[in-house]
C-alpha cells in the first residue's frame, strides 16, 4: 500500500518536472521566463530552509548568509577570472565549501543548545556577512555592487531556464529521497521529541549538524543560480528580508513537505510580480504589501499547516477513516 502510494506521487512529480522542461517552448517572453527562473531559484532556497525548519525543527534567522555566500562567490570568481564553464564549476565548489564550513561551525557551536541559540547566532552572522560585504569594497564593491560577465552559454535565458529547472528537479528528488530515508525519519523524530530520539540511541547533534550543512550548501547553490540570472551582485543578497521571504514561502507552502516551499515560492514570486503590476489598475495595488499581508493571514487561518501540509493532513485523515 505504502509503496504504491510513493510510486504514484513520484509519477505525479515526474510529470510536473516534464512540464517544467516544456514550458520554455510554449512561453518565450523573457520577463515571464525570468520570473519562472526566480521561482526555481527561490524554490531551491526554500527547500533548503524546509530541511531545517520543517524536517528538523531548527529555526534560522540568518539563512540568507548561505544564499549570499553562493552569490558573492560566483560573482567574484567571474569578475576575477575568465568567465568560462570551468569558472562556473569552481564557483559552485567554492560556495559549497564556504557554506559547508560556516554551517558546520555554527552547527557545532549552537545546535547542542536550545534552538534559539542557533536562530540568534545565524542572525548575528548574517549581519556580520552583510557588514563585511559593505566594508570589503575592494572585493565586493560595497553597497554599490558590481556587474560581471558570464560564459556565452549562460547568457542565453533558455539555457539558464533549463539549468535552473534541472537543478530544482534534481535537488527536489535528491532531498525527497533523503527525507524519506531512515535518516529523514530520524530528523522528523528529532523535530518532534529530541530527548526521546536521543534515548532511542541517536546522537542528535550529529544529525542536526549534517542537516545544517546540507541545508547551507543547497542554499548557497540557489545563490549561485540567482546571481547568474542577474549578472549583478550587491549587498542585498545578504538582506534579512530574504530570510523572511523564504520563511514565508516555507510556511505558506507547508513545512516539512519539500513541494510546499516550491509552491510557496511560486505564490510569493507571482504575488510580488502581479500585485505590483496592477498598480495601474487601482491605487490600492500600489500598496500591494497590504494585500500580500492579507493573503498571508488568510492562508495561515485556513491552511494552518500551509497549503500542502493541510491538504496532505486532510487526505491522511480521510484515508485513515476509510481503512477503519
Amino acid at each position, binding site marked *: *500500500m*505504502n509503496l504504491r502510494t510513493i510510486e504514484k506521487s513520484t509519477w505525479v512529480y515526474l510529470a510536473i518536472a516534464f512540464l517544467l522542461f516544456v514550458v520554455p517552448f510554449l512561453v518565450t517572453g523573457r520577463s515571464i521566463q525570468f520570473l519562472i527562473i526566480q521561482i526555481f531559484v527561490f524554490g531551491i532556497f526554500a527547500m533548503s530552509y524546509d530541511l531545517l525548519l520543517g524536517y528538523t525543527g531548527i529555526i534560522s534567522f540568518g539563512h540568507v548568509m548561505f544564499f549570499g555566500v553562493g552569490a558573492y562567490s560566483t560573482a567574484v570568481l567571474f569578475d576575477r577570472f575568465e568567465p568560462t564553464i570551468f569558472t562556473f564549476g569552481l564557483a559552485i565548489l567554492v560556495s559549497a565549501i564556504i557554506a559547508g564550513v560556516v554551517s558546520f561551525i555554527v552547527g557545532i557551536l549552537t545546535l547542542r543548545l536550545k534552538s534559539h541559540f542557533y536562530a540568534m547566532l545565524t542572525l548575528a552572522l548574517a549581519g556580520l556577512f552583510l557588514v563585511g560585504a559593505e566594508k570589503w569594497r575592494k572585493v565586493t564593491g560595497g553597497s554599490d555592487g558590481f556587474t560581471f560577465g558570464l560564459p556565452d552559454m549562460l547568457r542565453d535565458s533558455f539555457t539558464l531556464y533549463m539549468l535552473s529547472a534541472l537543478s530544482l528537479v534534481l535537488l527536489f528528488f535528491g532531498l525527497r529521497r533523503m527525507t524519506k530515508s*531512515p535518516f529523514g*525519519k*530520524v530528523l*522528523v*523524530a528529532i*523535530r*518532534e*521529541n529530541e*530527548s*526521546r*530520539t*536521543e*534515548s*532511542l*540511541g*541517536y*546522537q*542528535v547533534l550529529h544529525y542536526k549538524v549534517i542537516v545544517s550543512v546540507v541545508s547551507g550548501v543547497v542554499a548557497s547553490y540557489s545563490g549561485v543560480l540567482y546571481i547568474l540570472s542577474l549578472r549583478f551582485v550587491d549587498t542585498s543578497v545578504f538582506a534579512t528580508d530574504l530570510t523572511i521571504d523564504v520563511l514565508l514561502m516555507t510556511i505558506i507552502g507547508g513545512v*516539512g513537505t519539500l513541494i510546499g516551499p516550491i509552491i510557496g515560492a511560486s505564490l510569493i514570486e507571482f504575488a510580488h510580480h502581479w500585485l505590483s503590476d496592477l498598480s495601474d489598475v487601482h491605487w490600492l495595488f500600489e500598496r500591494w504589501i497590504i494585500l500580500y499581508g492579507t493573503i498571508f493571514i488568510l492562508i495561515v487561518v485556513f491552511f494552518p499547516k500551509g497549503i500542502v501540509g493541510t491538504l496532505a493532513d486532510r487526505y*491522511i*485523515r480521510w484515508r*485513515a477513516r476509510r*481503512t477503519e
Partner: protein
Amino acid sequence: MSDFLELRHMKANIEQYHILHDITFRVPKGEVTVLLGRNGAGKTTTLRSIMGLNPVVGGSLTFKGESIRNLKPHQIANKGIGYVPEDQGIFYDLTVGENMRVAMKKENGETKARMEWILDLFPDLKKFWNKPGGQLSGGQKQMLAISRAYVNDNELLLIDEPSKGLAPIVVEKVMESIHQMKEQTTIVLVEQNFMMASGIGDRFYIIDDGQTVQSGQMNELKQDGVLLQKYLGIS
C-alpha cells in the same frame, strides 16, 4: 543471579532542584523490579536519571558492572537499555511503521523476529501500520511505546507507568505483554496500580521523598498491610 543494574546512593537534579537524595537499588538479570511510591516521590526522575535525561550529581550508577553515570542518553541506550517514558514519547507525524523502524536501529533476523512477535501480540499495530502515531488511541500509543522499546534487542527495559490513563481492558493487555516480555528481558517497572504491579514484579523498592525507603520480595509486600498503608495508601 548477578546484578545487572545497580544504583548506590544516587543523587539527581531537575534543573537547579535537588530531587533524588539517596536512591539505592539493585536489579538482578531476568527479573522484574518494581519501583513503588506516591506521586512525586521520585520514581520517574529515577528512570530518567538512569537514562541520562536528568543529571546525576552524586552516587554511582552501573550497568553490567560498568559505570554509566556520566554517559549521554544515546550512549546509555546503545548499551542496551530501552526506555518507555510516562508520556509514551510517540512521534506523532511518523506512522506506526516509521515509529517502529526509527526505534529498530539495525534490521537483522533477530529484530525482524522481535517485530513479528510484537505485532502478533498487538495486532492493532499491524492494522494501523500506515497510520500516523498521533491518530492512535491512548492504548494503542502505549502498545506502540512498549513495542518500540522491545523491538531493539535491549537487555534492560525501563517502563514508566504503562497503565496510566488506560481503560482496564487495555491495561490487562499491556500488562500481559509485559508479562510475556519478562521471559526474555530484564525490566524495571514504575507502576501506581499495585494490583497490576504485584502480579508481574519479582521484587520491589519503595521510593519516598527522593530516597529508597523499603525493599524486598513482592510476595512479602503483598502480605505487609502496614507498609502498604504507610507508603502507598493501600488498606
